[in-house]
């Protein structure tokens, strides 16, 4: 199938994609790195000069940076925890025989398809609002004081919302992986006297280990970039209580117009994401050979 003629046309056909993606990656990336070494503020156009490592130094030593890293870890870790465990549970449940499985699946999957700005707003205003939101109304109905979710626990609230959005993703992936498990193995184990817990621990979980890892890696990459939910609910506040790394860079770049600082932050974000990406790429690479 691979003849001289088809090989040269193949190279031609792949070049637009390669050129576009190469450009998309290299050009902005180089610019970001370049800017990170400059004093460059859009509000003070004439005063651009070389900054050396200053931007990086100021970015990292700023207390909001540590706060942002902590928040990012909380957000990503929290969502991973909830979605992995919840997703596992939901997958195990949905794998069982039941009536109306198709419908129930759709209900569980639906949140992933709601745009993040809508999710965040609906949760914040219609559910978590202490006065008019459903949670508040139900709790008041029983005579208890309502919780001001976004007032008292803003980061946790955002974590909850993001978890709601990503739980379907984890569920779908784990369910797909679960359904590829050979039923014969489980039956053999049952004949060997294994209880459900044993079968879960010794057979299902190892089989799912790979899928769980993929879920964690892919979600991490996307969760590092959570933005819209924060913008729409708290704008990073109060103070920097809900600012993650992405939001911090956004503030620096587009609100404070400090291009140099924002670029330094951007480089740091890229490095962090790359670390996760390397692991993910290895897993993908292994499967591509299969």
């Amino acid at each position: 199938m691979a003849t001289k003629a088809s090989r040269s046309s193949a190279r031609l056909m792949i070049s637009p994609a390669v050129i576009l993606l190469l450009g998309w990656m290299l050009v902005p990336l180089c610019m970001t790195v370049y800017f990170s070494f400059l004093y460059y503020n859009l509000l003070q156009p004439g005063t651009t000069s070389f900054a050396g490592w200053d931007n990086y130094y100021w970015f990292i030593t700023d207390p909001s940076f540590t706060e942002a890293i902590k928040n990012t870890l909380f957000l990503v870790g929290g969502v991973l925890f909830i979605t992995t465990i919840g997703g596992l549970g939901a997958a195990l449940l949905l794998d069982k025989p039941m009536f109306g499985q198709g419908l129930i699946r759709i209900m569980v999957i639906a949140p992933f398809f709601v745009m993040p700005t809508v999710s965040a707003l609906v949760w914040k205003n219609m559910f978590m609002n202490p006065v008019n939101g459903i949670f508040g109304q139900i709790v008041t109905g029983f005579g208890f004081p309502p919780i001001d979710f976004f007032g008292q626990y803003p980061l946790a609230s955002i974590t909850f919302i993001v978890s709601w959005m990503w739980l379907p993703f984890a569920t779908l992936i784990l369910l797909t992986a679960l359904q590829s498990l050979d039923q014969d193995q489980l039956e053999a184990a049952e004949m060997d006297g294994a209880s459900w817990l044993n079968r879960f621990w010794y057979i299902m979980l190892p089989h799912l280990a790979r899928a769980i890892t993929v879920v964690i890696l892919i979600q991490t990459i996307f969760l590092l970039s959570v933005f819209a939910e924060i913008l729409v609910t708290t704008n990073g506040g109060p103070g920097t209580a809900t600012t993650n790394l992405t939001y911090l860079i956004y503030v620096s770049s587009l609100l404070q117009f400090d291009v140099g600082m924002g670029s330094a932050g951007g480089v740091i974000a890229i490095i962090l994401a790359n670390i996760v990406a390397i692991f993910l790429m290895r897993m993908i690479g292994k499967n591509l050979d299969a």
Partner: protein
Amino acid sequence: MGRIQLKDVQKTFGNVEVIPPLNLEIEDGEFVVFVGPSGCGKSTLLRLIAGLEDTTSGNIEIDDIDATDLPPAKRSLAMVFQSYALYPHMSVRKNIAFPMKMAKIDLETQNTKVEAAAKSLNLTDYLDRKPGQLSGGQRQRVAIGRAIVREPAAFLFDEPLSNLDAALRVGMRLEIMDLHKKLETTMIYVTHDQVEAMTMADKIVVLQDGRIEQVGSPLELYHTPKNKFVAGFIGSPKMNLIEGIEAKKLNASTIGIRPEHIKMSKTEGLWKGTVGVAEHLGSDTFIHIHNTGLLEMMTVRISGDVQVKHGEAIYLTPEKNKIHCFDAVGDRIL
């Protein structure tokens, strides 16, 4: 029409030389079978002729025109694939008509030819069905129909019967041979099944590791195999190949005798052994003999049903003039 010559054709995949420089002449109208074990390069050779792979070096001539650099479409060849490779989204009619559509032949001629091909292949009732609705044998015939309407210089068959069940295979074999008689077009047929090779071919090309071991008519290969490999490959069950003292007696490194050329007796003979497993086919029986001292297991064919008991002592005598002698390298000693 249909004369194909391979001149020093060589094929390398990466660092591996799959086909060392090979020469072959195929005459117009011949039914040539490429046969050999898995991985011997027979399919690769076919694909080189088809133009689906490029030669690393060497020339392929079709009707004295150098086709080495021509794409498959321009070589005037038609191929029937092992998996039939029918277009699943097109009806049988459209499948068969496709080559003509590519050749920009007018619709009326297309229809006439499709009808004609369908009639000769018993597909007229299925013209409007899709491949998914056909049986294996029917799909095979559609693939053949698609090849026929191209009116090629030669037909290329890549193990076309491997996916069919045994009974169907025998029937299709005969149909393909009939087709050859009718069309008188060159056919190159690849198979790993030496029975197909023997029954269908005018000329057999036995391949091993990309090299031609022998080219000849089926009976030539049967009676005078050029080396141990061909001797052991052609003929079923396999020829008994014996080394050691018996071979030295005839000044050879190895001697071979076919199961059907050994006489068996309960009372006397040249070699002695014990009866092992017997395979009763009804018309023939193949008996496996152990403890001859010559060969781990010797196979003997006797016609009909002869009563021998497992473990019984038995005597064997080979037909003197049917013994093949091979030297240390494995080549035939004349």
